[in-house]
């Protein structure tokens, strides 16, 4: 699956879900949606899952979708246990697994594609865990991901994105994204 195809499929059905892209999903998500209900994890690699957890706890009435990377998750692997322990019913943690640090030059991540993140999430205590390597299968699964009780984890086997933050830029500074989304959520 191409990451862009995955993101387009998500964008088509996500409704008012808050989205948290990071690293190589950020430029594509920006191109596809450019909306004010997203905040990219920029400047603190590995923080997307925790940022999403905070949003999910603060706004239990909203679905929160995290678009994590395998290299990013490895930097804060303990967040799997923290999320499972907090048991946010509205959090969906989607892992875009490509086996490399794409942004910094596609160096292989520790363990590469052999690392079984789905097994780790299951063992940590996520309520539901899926592994998806086919776009049609993902499209069938997406409606369930938007309503089932979380935390849910989805390991997506994807290729490399066409753009990275290094080639496409970081987009709006994180501080501006924070205030934009905060304004959306706290004025509602």
């Amino acid at each position, binding site marked *: 699956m191409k990451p862009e195809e995955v993101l387009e499929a998500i964008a088509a059905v996500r409704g008012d879900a808050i989205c948290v892209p990071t690293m190589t999903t950020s430029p594509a998500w920006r191109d596809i949606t450019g909306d004010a209900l997203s905040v990219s994890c920029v400047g603190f690699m590995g*923080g997307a899952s925790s940022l999403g957890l905070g949003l999910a706890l603060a706004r239990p009435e909203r679905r929160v979708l995290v678009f994590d990377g395998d290299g990013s998750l490895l930097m*804060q692997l303990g*967040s799997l246990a923290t999320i499972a322990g907090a048991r946010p019913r509205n959090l969906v943690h989607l892992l875009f697994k490509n086996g490399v640090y794409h942004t910094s030059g596609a160096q292989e991540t520790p363990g590469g594609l052999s690392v079984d993140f789905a097994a780790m999430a299951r063992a940590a205590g996520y309520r539901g865990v899926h592994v998806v390597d086919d776009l049609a299968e993902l499209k069938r699964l997406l409606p369930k991901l938007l309503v089932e009780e979380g935390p849910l984890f989805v390991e997506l086997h994807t290729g490399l994105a066409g753009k990275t933050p290094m080639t496409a830029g970081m987009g709006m500074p994180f501080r501006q994204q924070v205030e934009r989304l905060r304004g959306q959520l706290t004025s509602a």
Partner: protein
Amino acid sequence: MPESIPASLVIDTLKDTFQQARGGARREPLGWVLSVPDTHQRTVLAALDKERALRVLTCATEDEAAAIGAGLYIGGEPFVLMIQHAGLYASVNTLRGVGLDGQVPLFYMIGLLSREKDKDPRESRHSMVRYCEPLLDTFGIPHARLEGPDDVGRIPEYYRLAQQRKGPAAVLVGLETI
């Protein structure tokens, strides 16, 4: 000479601080305590187990705690990061990215484990005690010491300061709470 602060006083002060942050509204939880367990503040953490008005979330790392705090802030929820000085050192990049560049008002209560009662922390023989205030100074993060029960007013003061300046602020717990 510094004195230990009762856990109940810290908890009541946090509850008042968060209720004020909500414009006086009472609700549960009033706010969140994001903790990577700190030996120095363990009596507070123990007492929080029985407290319904504050929700404690134990995090695996201080990096996580800061990023979770950013999410809570975006969603409009008050919170405090209750950590130890070693955790501050461990999470400097997230502190920079979230608190300084991201301008998220991270409010820290940092325990100074191994601080000697008869010494200024900057003169401690323990590097983890000695470097804490200089590190905060390096990043331009305002901080104050909690050296006894009379200092608990620093908690709402520095919480508000973090909100006003849109960035981190810290109070340093000098002795073990009781």
